[in-house]
């Protein structure tokens, strides 16, 4: 293959995957896909990758994987026929799997082209649909499972941001917490410490809450019970 970079520039194209590049090489030279000159194609393929590297274009992993496959197939075709296997059916063509893959790939490329044509026609046809009854339509979407996951993803992302912001803005005093817990105790004679955890609160809040509880114990307003280490703490009004 010509290594003159000027020639390459003209030929530069975007290939989405290694099969695209291989098909291009085969088509360009009008090679019979069922009888690929594997050594020649392998060299051209590797040249192309080298050229991309020379131009500082990153080469995706799947292209390198295909390179390895091609080199393997090439090496197998160069080997003399296996004397052990020769007695049996004729040994399988090492190119077979790749050829099948290429043919399959080309079918899907044609299918994609068929879709492209259909899309072209459809994009030229506008649906009718009146707005005299439009007030019935609010800002709504037909929801798919993907919408559901996306929505949850958005919420989680938003939530993360908020937590960071809370830490900076919030301040809470021991007095406030004491008042809050006393208030709570009036409604309910006992509750668990995990109650405080259910509402998203910052570490500062949690620490102050804990200090407030200890203060209430000291003042003999509450008693704390814990069955085992790390177990939930039961808070009971005295």
């Amino acid at each position, binding site marked *: 293959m010509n290594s003159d970079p000027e020639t390459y*520039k003209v030929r*530069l*194209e*975007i*290939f*989405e*995957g290694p099969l695209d*590049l291989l098909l291009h090489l085969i088509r360009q030279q009008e090679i019979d896909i069922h009888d690929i000159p594997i050594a020649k194609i392998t060299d051209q393929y590797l040249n192309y990758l080298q050229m*991309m590297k020379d*131009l500082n*274009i*990153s*080469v*995706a*992993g*799947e*292209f390198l994987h295909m390179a390895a496959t091609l080199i393997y197939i090439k090496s197998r075709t160069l080997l003399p026929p296996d004397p052990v296997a020769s007695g049996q059916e004729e040994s399988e063509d090492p190119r077979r799997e790749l050829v099948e893959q290429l043919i399959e790939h080309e079918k899907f490329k044609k299918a994609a*082209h068929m879709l*492209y*044509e259909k899309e072209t026609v459809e994009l030229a046809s*506008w*649906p*009718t649909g*009146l*707005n*005299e*009854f439009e007030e*019935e339509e*609010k*800002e*709504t*979407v*037909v*929801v*798919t*499972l*993907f*919408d*559901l*996951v*996306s*929505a*949850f*993803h*958005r*919420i*989680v992302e*938003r*939530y993360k941001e*908020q937590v960071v912001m809370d830490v900076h803005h919030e301040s809470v005093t021991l007095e406030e917490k004491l008042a809050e817990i006393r208030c*709570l105790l009036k*409604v*309910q004679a006992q*509750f*668990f410490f995990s*109650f405080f955890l*259910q*509402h*998203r609160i910052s570490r500062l809040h949690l620490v102050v809450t804990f200090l407030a509880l200890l203060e209430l114990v000291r003042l003999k307003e509450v008693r704390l019970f814990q069955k085992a280490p790390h177990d939930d703490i039961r808070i009971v009004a005295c």
Partner: protein
Amino acid sequence: MLSKETYDQIIAILFVAREPVTLRQFQEVFPALPELELVQNLSECMSEFNSLQGAVQLRQIAGGYRITTRPEHHELIREYLKTRASAKLSLAALETLAVIAYRQPITLPEIMDIRSVRGTSTIRTLLEKKLIETRGRKKEVGRPILYGTTQEFLVHFGLNDLSELPTLEEFAEIFETGDTLHLSAPESPPVSSHTTPDGDGSLPANVPSPE
């Protein structure tokens, strides 16, 4: 006077129009037609269309031309509007549903906390659409009601059971945008006019010509 082609073209425009189409708008679309001729065409178009059509009518409304359904069909149309699948949700309802689906059983305060939005109207909508249901009460102060998704929810999203809900991790790769795993040449041919926003190496150049 009015050619079949112009007639079809005028009607086609009126069919896709969302508002009455003004004379000025028609003039922009048919720059070759003199104003007087255009007005005549429109008027002929109107009488021809209305003599042919019993379902809809072409009328002059609010200084423009517009096709509307005839009043006698309104009741029937309302019947039709009722039949449309009510699979649509507002964005707010969708978010609430997502939180419930992934964190069920969950209480209202918890939902509002996660979404950092107050308001209970989305819960009502979801209950009405039978996408969520109550699941008893949480054993905590105030004993708030717990919510979870329904059988109807599974049916709507084509799930056999809740374990089929995709996890965030599974979609993590998909949520990441702009993965550029492709070989792309800096001197790539000028396909820019065709590149789609997903930036995945759009390449209509390779589409064979249909001929």
